């Protein structure tokens, strides 16, 4: 009987104590922001979407190797000795044409491993977080400054160079064999069959 009434009393008193806290909260300023008209200012090292300044990129592949999910796709073509591509902002000479630098943002886990290994600091994370797109193709960010025709031209040049080198090598090998077969008795370093 006593517990019945003491329960009622305790129930009412504790509810009133709780309501005193919510009453006090009524007169405090609100902590909510009216997004999208008011936005929170992010700190300088905020990890938003990635951005690569392709003019500075030396094509070293360090970011692609550091990425845990392998979302960075890089293709480079070695520059010929007579071409001068300038220097990066940190002083490293640029020796590769960066024909493809794609980051698949849908795979990216925003861990920031790639920016910490970049030697020229051309890859960095901005503070943009409103990056929703309507189609999956728009989720792949292209940072290379070469148009598809230029990229194709450079790539064909590289492939032609490789084929040229391979031909030269083959010709040298064939010439060596011909010289060995058609000339005087071949010098043998060791007897046949040993």
């Amino acid at each position, binding site marked *: 009987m006593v517990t019945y009434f003491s*329960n009622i009393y305790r129930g009412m008193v*504790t509810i009133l104590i*709780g309501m005193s806290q*919510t009453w006090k909260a009524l007169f405090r300023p609100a902590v909510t922001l009216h997004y999208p008209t008011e936005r929170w200012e992010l*700190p300088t*090292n905020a*990890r938003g979407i990635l951005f690569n300044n392709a003019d500075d990129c030396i094509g070293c592949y360090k970011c692609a190797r550091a990425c*845990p999910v392998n979302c960075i796709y890089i293709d480079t073509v070695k520059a010929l000795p007579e071409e001068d591509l300038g220097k990066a902002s940190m002083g490293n000479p640029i020796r590769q044409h960066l024909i493809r630098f794609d980051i698949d943002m849908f795979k990216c886990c*925003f861990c*920031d491993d790639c920016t910490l290994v970049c030697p020229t600091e051309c890859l960095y994370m901005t503070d943009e977080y409103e990056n929703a797109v309507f189609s999956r193709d728009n989720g792949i960010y292209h940072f290379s400054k070469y148009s598809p025709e230029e990229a194709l031209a450079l790539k064909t040049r590289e492939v032609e160079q490789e084929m040229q080198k391979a031909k030269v090598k083959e010709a040298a090998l064939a010439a060596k064999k011909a010289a060995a077969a058609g000339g005087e008795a071949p010098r043998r370093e060791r007897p046949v069959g040993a």
Partner: protein
Amino acid sequence: MFGNMFKKKRYLFEDEGVMVVDMDQTAGRYYDEAMKKLEIESYQGDEMVVNMGPQHPSTHGVLRLELVLDGEVVKKTTPHIGYLHRNFEKHAENIPYNEVIPFCDRIDYISSMNQGMGYALAVEKLIGLTELPEKVEYMRVLCCELNRIASHLIAIGTFGLDVGAITPFLWAFRDREQILDLLEWLTGARMLYNYIWVGGLAREVPDGWDAKVREFVDYFEPKMTEFNKLLTNNHIFIKRTVDVGVLPEDVAVSYGCTGPVLRGSGVKWDLRKDEPYSYYDKFEFDVPVGEGKFGPLGSVLDRYLVRIEEINQSVRIIRQALDGLQQHKGQDVRSAIPRRIRPADGAEAYVRSETPRGELGYLIRSDGTDVPSRVKARSPCFSNISVIDDISRGGMIADLVIIIGSLDIVLGCIDR
């Protein structure tokens, strides 16, 4: 062809004992037999089988609970997990040691500093790195304790929501926002930090950060008093939660529960005190244990009170860590990070740490290369959710919701 695949025997645990199902049959027939048995059992009386499906606002994630109900009373609960399985252990076998850390964060995404800490400690034990700068150790403890407060705020806030109180949820999240802002200033991200690296920390601590943490701690302590006045001391709340989900001590220990679930049942076991790692032996704090002041020991209320008290103890640790950090301000947090992590062939290390949900263990085995050969994460929520059948019998569905909330599970931790 298929007969050889299913040669193993599996067991289906039942009340009366063990039912052995011979797996020589194909998987389809196994499923049919099991369902037949469950159907026969459920058609006795007024029982029905109801799915508290993976999409449910009260299951704290994608947890599927198969309930056998007699009206509103729960007769049997079978949790089905795996809806959030992301192959953490398989990924970790293919990428280098330091790149596993973003994956570790995503195991328990609410308290992700603690996951990274456990992994970093395990790899450091593997490569034999024992001496770290003091600043790194103090910062690690600070980050872990801040994350513990944030995680417990979610636990008590959503617990209030499960019981039916909506205001404490928003108050808890308002205070959690302050912590997340602090950690965003420190690491750049709000939830998945990738900050505690093997051998140190990823980034330098910004100037003025510790002053802000001190400000936060001074702001936060009166907020906890307010929160207690609103929810914890509320007589109706106490009466609602005091005799629900009672977990006896021996059942908790036999299922392998750890963390507040175990401590709520009266077992005083906290890895920070009993097997101290990092700098935890330098700090003075108590380990709260459920006392059963208002009702049976090991109830849902006891686990809740343990978490409230743990928040207060974490605040104590943070204050002491800030004092310790003050003395070692000038050190470089990245100086001890190894350039190349290549442990010896066949080396193995198992390190356990105390996360807000319980004991997290990492077993790492190496085969001499840059890439681990095996990483096993022993997750606390997996063992904690296994008691749900035992403690929810005889209660109603509403009580089941509170019990899940009190176990404080995170499906990312269960499924990995």
